[in-house]
């Protein structure tokens, strides 16, 4: 018998020349078994190896029978009993036949060909590679290494054969291939194509922070540029615009110097277009670089329809490119986070693409689903890179055209600016004085904290204009200068244009010296943004390479565009705007539509394509922009995503309309906006089937959180499991509804049902929700401890799951702690839990027990024991890499330090807890309590108020746990009241009250009273304040929290107004 097995490019088996019919592989496992054995040395494996590979999730006992079944079906498919032989503990594939496996042949030929370097051998080997190994089994662990090996050999063969185009299709970042092609083009005299190749290499490398073409490649590029008739150097704008800016430059220099001592600031440079903002920044940058500073620049709206955070991330990327070695000091976690955001990528989001029915894959669950606060991790990562880069002489980060930036960018900049106050950092933002609400909001907030300095750049006076004009026209008379001054209004850009080209320059256009054909090409390019590369230029032009290159040369020659590191840009935003201003509306719409098509052909992002279609008034924009909105949502740019969704909503029809409203509901929910309810309602009208069921579950959840029990009830009525992906969300919503309606028995039953449906994977939000609910239920029955014990047994052998389970209990544990169970009893519970857990070897539970005991001891005022237990909890959690537990224990330890009067130590612990919390799956529970404690740890009322603000900025209203919210809101009320900020105090109080409703009968009612006392005092109602404080003390007493009693009895500090 002769058997040929094909694994490369697909799976196929031929027995004596006859193909095994693909349809006969009725069992996937049968095919897997054959593939696995075909890859094994001598095509045989120990049976346990087979079981491990194919059924990794099953025990050996459970998997055993399946192996026999799979073997049976494999024999059936292969048409012979001898195809698979199970003897003793060995499984063999065709042990007695003459078998060839294509990947073995390929590897053998490839290694020989590479060794001997013979061209014929190389092409023979190449012909053998029909594609990646087992392309249908990409996620099977056992095939990965072999697939990579074959792929690497294939790449080496292509390299050896000099098949550069093919090599680049396989690996677009292969520098050897790019450089070889550059050389080939250059040798053929095609310099443009050579440069375009360089840009392509640059673009593919750009994906990764700090990656750039090698010095050798850049050197080659420079040689090619030199060989070309070099375009005239761009006008020395920096030098021009700096006429009359001595004062501003001196201010900036002083700020730079101050920042260099570790007191970082933000500068907002405002002024009309052409006034010289960019030039002033350039001068500052030169100065900074001369003193050894590092820098990065990003420009908002470099392209229309950019990613969220684009200008800030571009500045970070620019920094990384200039200083790649710096990244040797940046944790991979941070680098990956920044890269992910730059690529607009979120792993779980993208994985869903293409799987399953579109309705579900794109369903609202994406936002409620695993979403470990991506944007907060990005914030920390960006701040860490900023810190690293500023650890030398200093760091100058610039965001130009900030008025065009997205809201997400503003939040990130805000965060960076706050974190810069103790670093050698100067953040410079340049803006025009146009409407930019997010920017204004950021400015106000930073100014309030004294972090931001405003610099207004006005037009030049006559003397300065005089000097400027004389530079370009040394012979200009006073009269001419006066005239130019009047015409230009003192705007240096305009003055220089007129001085150079005469008054016509202001006559409608700053774009001179180009013919109409070139102008039209440039308009087509300008519509897409300020910057572009050769590929984009050619595509957008809609012309042949030859004609496009000719236009490019004219434009370069006329200084309409100029060359930059990664391609080209218009010389000035005004130049681009002037080109576009010429376009009649209908023409512009046409050009927008063309741009969308051409960008789509280039594989541009949905955001860019959709942006142009939207401006063309083409409803085809809708699906693109919804894709873009989903990406933004994944990156935490909720408000920007919402803006996109609202923009396309009027145009969305059918499926898109449904998708649109569901996404809108998710975004509003994520933003804590109660109008999520009406969005989901609308979505309900537009959806059908599973999608609608999911939307209904979401609507019910939103209704529950907004306190509308009736609506939740009505929504859920008649909704039953139907065997689809909406089942778990439905059961969970129903269970929650039952619980909050007081129907504990039903809630318990439904929660158990939900438990069977929710996928038990770590970090799944539904799982955490569920566990929290079950904890609440158990607590309600007085069986919380029992419930914990059940979890304990369940998780003994699954450490990852144990983390999820015990993290899920965190909220509930708080309920227990602040609830009516006496602390002595909690301590006993914790002891018993610890003993059981230790016996069972469930270390995560031991750690949890230590934390619980420590917390109880702390609240009960037993500081010594609290210290011991919490320290133990911190250590244990750390050992287990249980970051949530560690952060939680650190936060409690910080409270202990506060109780001991050591604010500095408390703050330090909280600083340690913060990043851990952010990276945990339950960040939204932890962050609020950490920020709450930070407020309490602040050294004075002003600092406490600032801490509230910082927390507001960091978590905003984006993510919240309604339970845990109170732990932040109560201290926030007190801090705001203590500095007399009554507006802020009352808004935090409202939030605290909402949260407190969930905490009936607990010590948090006392907390609320204490907060009210502070508010009353701030209003000058001293007697009211004293009464409230007494009540608070009494409540705390009842709850057995002596430290809190003491604090309330001590009375209020004098208001600091």
């Amino acid at each position, binding site marked *: 018998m002769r058997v040929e097995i094909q694994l490369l490019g697909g799976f196929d088996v031929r027995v004596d020349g006859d193909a095994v019919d693909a349809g006969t592989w009725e069992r996937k496992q049968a095919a897997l078994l054959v593939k696995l054995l075909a890859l094994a040395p001598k095509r045989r494996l120990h049976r346990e190896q087979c079981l491990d590979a194919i059924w990794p999730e099953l025990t050996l006992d459970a998997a055993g029978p399946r192996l026999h079944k799979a073997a049976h079906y494999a024999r059936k498919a292969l048409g012979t009993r001898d195809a698979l032989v199970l003897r003793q503990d060995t499984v063999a594939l065709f042990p007695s036949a003459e078998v060839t496996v294509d990947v073995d042949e390929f590897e053998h030929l490839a290694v020989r060909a590479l060794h001997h370097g013979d061209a014929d051998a190389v092409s023979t080997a190449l012909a053998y590679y029909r594609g990646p190994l087992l392309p249908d089994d990409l996620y099977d662990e056992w095939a990965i290494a072999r697939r990579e090996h074959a792929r690497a050999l294939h790449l080496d063969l292509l390299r050896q054969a000099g098949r550069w185009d093919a090599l680049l299709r396989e690996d677009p970042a292969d520098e050897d291939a790019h450089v070889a092609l550059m050389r080939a083009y250059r040798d053929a005299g095609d310099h443009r194509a050579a440069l375009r190749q360089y840009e392509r290499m640059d673009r593919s490398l750009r994906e990764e922070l700090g*990656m750039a073409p090698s010095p050798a490649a850049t050197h080659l590029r*420079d040689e090619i540029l030199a060989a070309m008739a070099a375009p005239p150097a761009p006008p020395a704008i920096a030098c021009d615009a700096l006429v009359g800016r001595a004062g501003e430059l001196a201010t900036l220099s002083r700020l730079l110097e101050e920042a260099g001592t570790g007191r970082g600031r933000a500068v907002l440079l405002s002024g009309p277009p052409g006034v010289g903002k960019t030039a002033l920044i350039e001068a500052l940058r030169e100065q900074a670089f001369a003193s050894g500073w590092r820098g990065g620049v990003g420009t908002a709206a470099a392209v229309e329809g950019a990613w969220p955070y684009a200008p800030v991330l571009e500045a970070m990327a620019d920094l990384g490119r200039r200083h*790649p070695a710096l990244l040797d000091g940046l*944790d991979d976690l941070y680098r990956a986070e920044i890269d992910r955001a730059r690529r607009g990528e979120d792993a779980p989001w993208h994985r869903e693409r293409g799987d399953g029915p579109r309705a579900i894959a794109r369903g609202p669950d994406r936002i409620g689903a695993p979403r470990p606060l991506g944007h907060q991790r990005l914030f920390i990562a960006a701040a860490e890179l900023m810190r690293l*880069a500023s650890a030398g002489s200093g760091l100058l980060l610039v965001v130009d055209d900030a008025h065009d930036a997205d809201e997400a960018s503003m939040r990130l900049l805000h965060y960076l600016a706050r974190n810069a106050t103790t670093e050698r950092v100067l953040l410079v933002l340049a803006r025009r004085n146009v409407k930019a609400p997010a920017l204004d909001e950021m400015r106000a907030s930073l100014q309030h904290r004294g972090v931001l300095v405003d610099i207004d750049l006005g037009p030049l006076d006559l003397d300065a204009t005089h000097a400027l004009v004389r530079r370009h026209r040394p012979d200009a008379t006073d009269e001419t200068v006066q005239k130019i001054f009047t015409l230009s209004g003192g705007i240096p850009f305009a003055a220089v244009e007129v001085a150079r080209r005469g008054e016509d320059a202001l006559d409608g256009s700053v774009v001179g010296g180009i013919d109409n054909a070139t102008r039209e090409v440039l308009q087509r390019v300008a519509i897409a943004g300020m910057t572009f590369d050769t590929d984009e230029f050619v595509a957008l032009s809609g012309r042949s390479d030859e004609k496009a290159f000719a236009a490019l040369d004219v434009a370069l020659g006329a200084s309409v565009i100029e060359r*930059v590191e990664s391609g080209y840009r218009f010389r000035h935003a005004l130049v681009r705007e002037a080109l576009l201003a010429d376009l009649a509306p209908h023409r512009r719409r046409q050009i927008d539509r063309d741009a969308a098509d051409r960008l789509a052909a280039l594989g541009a992002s949905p955001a860019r394509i959709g942006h142009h279609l939207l401006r063309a008034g083409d409803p085809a924009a809708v699906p693109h922009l919804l894709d873009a909105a989903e990406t933004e949502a994944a990156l935490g740019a909720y408000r920007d995503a919402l803006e996109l969704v609202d923009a396309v909503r009027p145009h969305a029809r059918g499926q898109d309309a449904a998708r649109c409203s569901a996404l809108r509901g998710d975004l509003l929910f994520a933003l804590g906006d109660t109008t999520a309810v009406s969005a989901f309602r609308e979505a309900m009208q537009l959806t059908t089937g599973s999608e609608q069921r999911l939307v209904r579950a979401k609507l019910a959840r939103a209704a529950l959180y907004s306190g509308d029990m009736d609506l939740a009830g009505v929504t859920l009525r008649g909704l039953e499991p139907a065997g689809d992906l909406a089942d778990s969300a439905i059961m969970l919503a129903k269970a929650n509804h039952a619980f909050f309606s007081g129907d504990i028995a039903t809630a318990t039953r439904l929660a158990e049902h939900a438990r069977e449906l929710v996928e038990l994977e770590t970090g799944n939000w539904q799982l955490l929700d569920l566990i929290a609910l079950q904890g609440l239920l158990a607590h309600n029955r007085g069986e919380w401890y029992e419930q914990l014990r059940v979890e304990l047994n369940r998780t003994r052998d699954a450490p990852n799951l144990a983390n999820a389970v015990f993290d899920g209990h965190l909220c509930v544990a708080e309920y227990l702690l602040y609830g009516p169970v006496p602390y002595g009893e909690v301590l006993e519970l914790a002891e018993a839990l610890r003993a059981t857990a230790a016996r069972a070897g469930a270390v995560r539970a031991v750690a949890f027990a230590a934390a619980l005991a420590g917390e109880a001891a702390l609240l009960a005022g037993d500081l010594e024991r609290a210290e011991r237990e919490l320290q133990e909890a911190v250590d244990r959690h*750390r050992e287990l890499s249980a970051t949530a537990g560690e952060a939680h224990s650190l936060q409690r330890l910080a409270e202990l330090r506060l109780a001991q009067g050591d604010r500095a130590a408390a703050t330090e612990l909280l600083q340690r807890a913060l990043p851990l919390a952010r990276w945990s799956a339950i960040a939204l529970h932890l962050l609020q309590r950490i920020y709450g404690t930070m407020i309490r740890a602040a050294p004075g009322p002003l600092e406490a108020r600032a801490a509230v603000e910082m927390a507001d900025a960091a978590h905003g209203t984006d993510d919240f746990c309604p339970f845990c919210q109170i732990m932040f809101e109560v201290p926030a009320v007190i801090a705001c009241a203590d500095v007399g900020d009554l507006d802020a105090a009352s808004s935090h109080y409202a939030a605290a009250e909402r949260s407190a409703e969930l905490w009936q009968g607990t010590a948090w009612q006392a907390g609320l009273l204490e907060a009210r006392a502070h508010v009353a005092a701030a209003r000058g109602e001293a007697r009211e304040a004293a009464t409230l404080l007494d009540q608070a003390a009494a409540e705390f007493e009842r709850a057995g929290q002596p430290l809190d009693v003491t604090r309330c009895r001590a009375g209020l500090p004098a208001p600091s107004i």
Partner: protein
Amino acid sequence: MNVEHYDAVIVGARPAGAATAMLLARAGLDVLVVDRSEYGRDTLSTHALMRAGVLQLARWGLLEAVVAAGTPPIRRTQFHYEDGTSEISLKPAAGVDALYAPRRTVLDAVLVDAARDAGATVRYGTTATDVVSDGSCVTGISLRDERSEYVVRARLTIGADGMNSRVARLVGAATTRAGRHASAFAYGYWTGLDVDGYEWFWRPGVMGGFIPTNDGAVCVCVGAPTEGFGGVSYAQLLERAAPDARERLAHANPPAALRRFAGRPGHLRRATGPGWALVGDAGYFKDPLSTHGITDALRDAELLARAVVAGAVQDFEAERDRLSEQLFGVVDELAAYEWDNGQVRRLLLALSSAMTDEVEALAALDRPQVPTMPV
């Protein structure tokens, strides 16, 4: 008697001396380099080359020989702290796509061979006993080998003879900056230790490093403040520095012998004077916890050689100091061991930052001085 004349005589054929000799010889100078030891002799070292060090070997065309000797490439660094581990992948940058920690038998031999190939005269078993001066300027050096004592004349006498440099003492090179703190170190070569990159351990009062070098060996070093170092065993220190590696160490083969370094505060000395110059640890030494000594030696060899060739040897010191200033300060603070987890992370950020400046300065040496593109 015939007195030999050289353009430069270099005392010490370890990395700083051998590299300086190679570079000067490549520039066409007549160079003699002497060392009291013998060719290929091993020596105490932390081995780890940082990016700037590998960059130098690559620029000089010597990296291939180091790689060919089977030196494992390092593409990953882990920093272990008391409160967590930070992992960093090394990506290609400045033309360097991996780091290396060659055994000194490999590295020193490669450098000396390159110096010879470039035309330098190398004499082992030769000790420098005194400098020769005409009263205002050093004009040569007295040497002794097993047969005789003799004098060679040189326009420049370079001390590359380590931190206890005799040349520095003989020419009276003043200390311009002195560190205040010092670590004592113990080193051993382990085999069978599961390590796939540099690993650094920073815990209060102690630091350690796992450095994979040739032949499957891993140099495991531990350092602690000099005071109180005695009386604590290598194993105890290792346990304190790297408790998270306990398991891995238990499954590996411990070293047959240990080497110790008693510790010595860092120094910057005058780098040049009339007729003399200092390079390597002789002029600039910092605590070994930086594992940056060889890297800086390779850097300074080039800075000195360039200054010599340019006829401006006196410019060397300013450039050396400019690139050393921040790192020197940070390393001294680290060597104080008075930091906590948060502070050590900050200090290491500053260290990374300083190393970046160094890489960039070296990479810029090759850049043609023509105007490049506006960016």
